[in-house]
């Protein structure tokens, strides 16, 4: 069985069924997502290009996606402008960030 070609976009799904289609190049900045999508690790996620997070809700996942793009954009630049974080999300976000490895 040959592996399907890698798609440009992947789908991240939150536990309350919000779906986010993000660039693969941005998504793999998160270690956990990268491992899940890596075809060589033979996960279902790798085949379907779709990762479901049972412990992250839509609001948080949206912020995470936002961050992934922000990170990708500023990858090479110096003195990056600060990422805007609503303080009330911080605690949940920090757990998600730790889990995702970003």
């Amino acid at each position, binding site marked *: 069985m040959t592996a399907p070609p890698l798609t440009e976009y992947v789908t991240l799904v939150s536990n309350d069924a919000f779906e986010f289609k993000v660039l693969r190049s941005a998504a793999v900045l998160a270690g956990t997502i*990268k491992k899940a999508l890596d075809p060589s690790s033979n996960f279902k996620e790798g085949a379907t290009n779709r990762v479901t997070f049972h412990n992250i809700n839509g609001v948080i996942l949206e912020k995470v996606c936002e961050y992934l793009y922000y*990170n990708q954009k500023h990858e090479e630049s*110096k*003195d990056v402008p600060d990422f805007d974080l609503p303080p009330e999300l911080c*605690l949940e976000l920090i757990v998600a960030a730790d889990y995702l490895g*970003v």
Partner: protein
Amino acid sequence: MREFVDPANNISAQEIRDSYRQRLDHAAAQGAAEAVENGEAAAEATQNEDEEGVQAESSAMAAERSRKRKRNTEEAVAKIKKGKEAKKKATKKKKRGSDEEDDSDYEAVMDMYKKAKPLPGQLENCELCSKRFTVTPYSKAGPDGGLLCTPCGKEMAKEAKANEKAAKPAVRRGRRKIESNRLDGLSGRGAKSLVQLCIEKLAKHAEDIDEFGELPESIMNRLSEIFSKKRAMNPTSVKLFLRPEMDTVAVHEAAYLETEDYDQIFAVVPNLQKLVLRNACQFKDVNMDYMIEKAINLQHIQLQGANLVSNDKWIDLFIARGEDLKSLKLEWLDAAFNDQVVEALVEFCPNLERLKLERCRLLGIETIEALTRSKNLQHLTLQLSKDVPMERLVNLIGHIGANLRTLCLQEFLDRENDPTDDILQAIHDTCRHLSKFRFTENNECSDAGYVALFSDWANPPLKHIDLQSNRDVDNANPDGPEDFPIGLASEGFKALMAHSGSKLEYLNIKSCRHISHKTFAEVFDGTKQYPNLQELDMSFCPVVDTQIVAAVFRSCPKIKKVVTFGCFEVADVVVPRGMTLIGAPKAQDAIEQYGEMVMDFQKELMKEMEKAGRVAPVMA
């Protein structure tokens, strides 16, 4: 928490000495010149020159000046010329262009022929609004040199202030923050990690947080550190960090905590194994009692500045919990904790593996004696304020040196006896398992001693070496005795790198200023490799120059941080990517330089990394 680097120390002793000499010479020259010329004229001239520069001084002064000038203008001109000559002879330092000098002379003369400014009490038309007003000593000078009425004067002052304010912050604020981040070790490239961002945000809103919930331990730790750094650890916020299931409580800045808060720690966290409290000013005997009673699993204690605990209470602690204690780190104790307490410590804590006693003021020789009986110690850090005869220290190493993994002896001097290298010899002869060695601020041991230590040492290569400030201290002879170098000098440094270079990760040779340029060039020749070296501090080694720093980058593939405060020969280094150079004194715009260039020797490494997949920017 990072160590602080103080750019204010960015001065080389050499430079200070040079400028001092220069000033001496000047003073001598000046004295001679003044003896020839008329000293009074010179003084008068300086005064006149000063006056010419200050435009906006009070009108009273101006009026007085002009009156004087009317009286004997010509005399003054003659004096100025005379004075100028005298001054020119005396101070060769201020080499201004001759044109400029002539101009200023001319201006000074012209100034005298100007219309006299009105005296206080007279009437004058305002330069801006042309209104008539009475001149007072407080009347301000206008842009063209005339006087202003009070409202216009106020307006002017306001504008000047506003301009001053507007000019400053735009450039500074951003830069300060950036520099501070850099010195904190945050990489300048790419975005910060999301975890890092969240932690910073949380610390900013410390007082609004009700509880942390189920945060992973590592993040809790990091948060606690950041809270401490921001001094946000107070009786309310510390409770956020207390959870019953934890086994470690670390409050790195406990100065705001009150006596009851310490009890709270032991009440909430029954299984406490490791306790870290720094600046624990209000930690008292009663807390100690409560800790002895509640924290029955305690194995690791680190207390800094707990000066309200009495000697007896320390002894109580060791009697009650001594059997279980594995590590004890105490710093900044000066009200209590004396030699007897250390004796009790050695007596009742037979299983102690790690001991750190820094800046405990009451400790002396008897502490060293007592420690000889502490046979299970593996990590020992000592910094005593009292002088200890070297033979006692040698004796201590002889007794417990064989087991030690870490040995840190800071500022041990023996001012009474003749300096010897016995201590280094003892370390050479007994220590077999050291991986971290710190021996600092010593001006007694000789270079030969260090050579002997690192030559044929049965100890495997060390990972962490700190030999800062081992040099001769003699202001009259800054280079030290030539034939018998004192401190870690050329040969010692060579021997060190030959012995430990292969495994060395951290090296501090700050202020070891007798190491020669030739030696540096030999050790870091660009081909010899030090594969594990990550951090190198060569501050205040005056011979270190651009070439050596460049060679360090080539010789140490893993190096992340090179510190060169006070190395005045370092300029315009091209810093390779991923490496950081801190403290290059001639880099006016940045204390720290980040590598942008990808060097040839890095390209292969990059290829490998690319093969492994893109690596997201990692935060320290």
